[in-house]
């Protein structure tokens, strides 16, 4: 029974990962990251249910809190970059190198 949930979680994670790798728009990349996090959450909850203890669900809450915090900071950064550079492409923000 839990297999379906796990497969779904894997699919969501894969879609998210592909999105991060392929898309250039920072907002989209960001949403894909969220998708991956939620895929993980699904896996945690599934295992929690399967094993029968609450730890997985607790971790899922932690992930959600971290994700919320990340959204706050991340969106702020993206907006700032967009304001200064008139672009939301992640490839354009490549000054931090070598």
């Amino acid at each position, binding site marked *: 029974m839990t297999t379906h949930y796990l497969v779904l979680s894997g699919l969501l994670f894969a879609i998210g990962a592909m999105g*991060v*790798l392929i898309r250039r728009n920072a907002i989209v990349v960001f949403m894909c990251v969220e998708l991956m996090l939620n895929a993980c959450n699904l896996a945690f909850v599934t295992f929690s249910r399967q094993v029968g203890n609450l730890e997985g669900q607790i971790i899922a809450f932690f992930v959600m809190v971290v994700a919320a915090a990340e959204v706050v900071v991340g969106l702020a950064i993206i907006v700032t970059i967009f304001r200064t550079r008139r672009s939301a492409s*992640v*490839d354009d923000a*490549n*000054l931090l*190198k070598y």
Partner: protein
Amino acid sequence: MESQVAEIVQHTGGAIGNAWLMIAFPLVGAFILLVFNRFTNRWGHLLGVAMSLASFVVAVLAFFELIGFGEEERRRAVHLYEFIPGMVDMGLLIDPLSICFALLITGVGSLIHIYSIGYMAHDEHRRRFFSYLNLFVAAMLLLVLADNYVGLFIGWEGVGLASYLLIGFWQFKPSAATAAKKAFVVNRVGDLGLLVGMFVIWTTFGTLTFQGLAEKITPGTQNGTMLAIGLLLLLGACGKSAQLPLQSWLLDAMEGPTPVSALIHAATMVTAGVYLVVRSGAFFFPEGSGAALAVAIVGAVTLLAGAIIGCAKDDIKKGLAGSTMSQIGYMMLGAGLGPAGYAFAIGHLITHGFFKADMFLGAGSVMHGMNDEVDMRKYGALRKAMPITYVTFMIGYLAIIGFPLLSGYFTKDGIIETAVHHQPILGWLAVIGAGVTGFYMSRMIFMTFFGEKRWADDAHPHESPLVMTVPLMILSLGAIGLGGWLVLGGTLYKFLIPAVGGNINEVPHFDFFSTPGLVTLALVAVGVVFAWMRYGRVAVPSVQPRGNFLTTFARRDLYGDALNESLFMRPGQWLTRLAVFFDNRGIDGVVNGLAAGIGGSSGRLRRIQTGFARSYALSILIGAALLTGALLFVGNI
């Protein structure tokens, strides 16, 4: 039966017990003059003389105290202090041998101090000159008075330092500075021998004191180790005494002021090698040993080489320097003949100290009157201008060529006869050397005091002041009478027996009419006549003629410098350059190359950081996948 060396007894008190004062006086003098510097300028020379005289007084007192003891008790050791714990203590050994040297050093030394007052009167650094002279006297006394090889070595290098400072006294002249350095470096080559010799002595016998060695060595012992020690000490002696093959520094050393040449490079320091051989004679140079033979050969070869060099020099001081080499060759020859030769070697050393110092100071007096001109071709007919110098120089001259009944006659003939008796070939070489001596010394006399005036236009030769001529007179008195007094009846031989060995029943009898003696006299006469024909009868050209091959050979110091230059100096310079290059490019090159390599590769490696967030994400994904795969793989094993 031979070698009656007396045992060394410990001594305290009296003049002997306070013999360290001999060293301390001049040392304090040197210290005061150097430290208080300009403040002592006005009276510094007087202090220097006073300290040297004080030292002489102590030496005389010690001498009389010493002869107050019976012959078997005339080796007195004075303990001073613990030097290197467990190895050697500093102490003095007052015995007939060392007291002879002490008297010579302080006596002739004081005379030369006095002479220098006049000679250096116009030099603005006279005070410094006297401080160095004092330093020299102190070091030389330590050399001869020390009761162990380490103390001897300290004095040995101390006189080397004083010699370095005094040769380079006029250091603003590049030639003087170079000569000073050369003297020190060549001496150090000899010191290497002495140093390694000490290693072997310490390792073999566990002691470095003369007393300790006397207890451990059976007289007359010969084996490989003893031979090695003997040859190593001989190397040291060759360096200090300018014997072949380490002779090349002495001629250059004449760059120093003339009193220095007289004191250090004629009368005292250069005879230190003879002292070393005689002092170690009972241990490492027993009669008939290979080491002793080596000493005699070195002496015989050097006495000829020095004489040949002396024949060709126009510089009066260099001529005398060649003669010094030659005379020390005689001493070395004597020192290689066992106790019978020791007495004559030391005797010749003492008389040579007088007559050679006399002549050097005389040469200085001539130079003083001739605006420091040293070229004998610019002299001529000086006997009228400076009569006292002329007479004293003549006495020294007659003494050195072995004119009958003067000092040199007794001591040099003694060496020759003993040599002919023990080592006939070397002995006859010494006879030939005496003939050559007659030639080159007469040449010097004729060129300097006889013949026509060849002076420079601004030369106004005049007799030197009394402060310079009185020491000359005293020295020439020694050159007249000392030899006979020491040799006739074997006075010196008997006196030295407790220190160097010998047999009281076999005192060598001085034979006035022996064959070698007569041949020597005849050859000397030939030499004198030959010199008269070349330089007395005909006018001497005031410019050096070209000369044949042999003359050039002698003028170039038998190509000794050329040999050193091509064998050691040039290869050494190449080696140095090679080593510096290797160090900068080789070793440091590897180090810097390593650093550059690391720097370069990290420069490549950082290019991976492209700045594209998505490529980072990809590498994270791949990494995570690999990690997961690895975990699965490991989990399945």
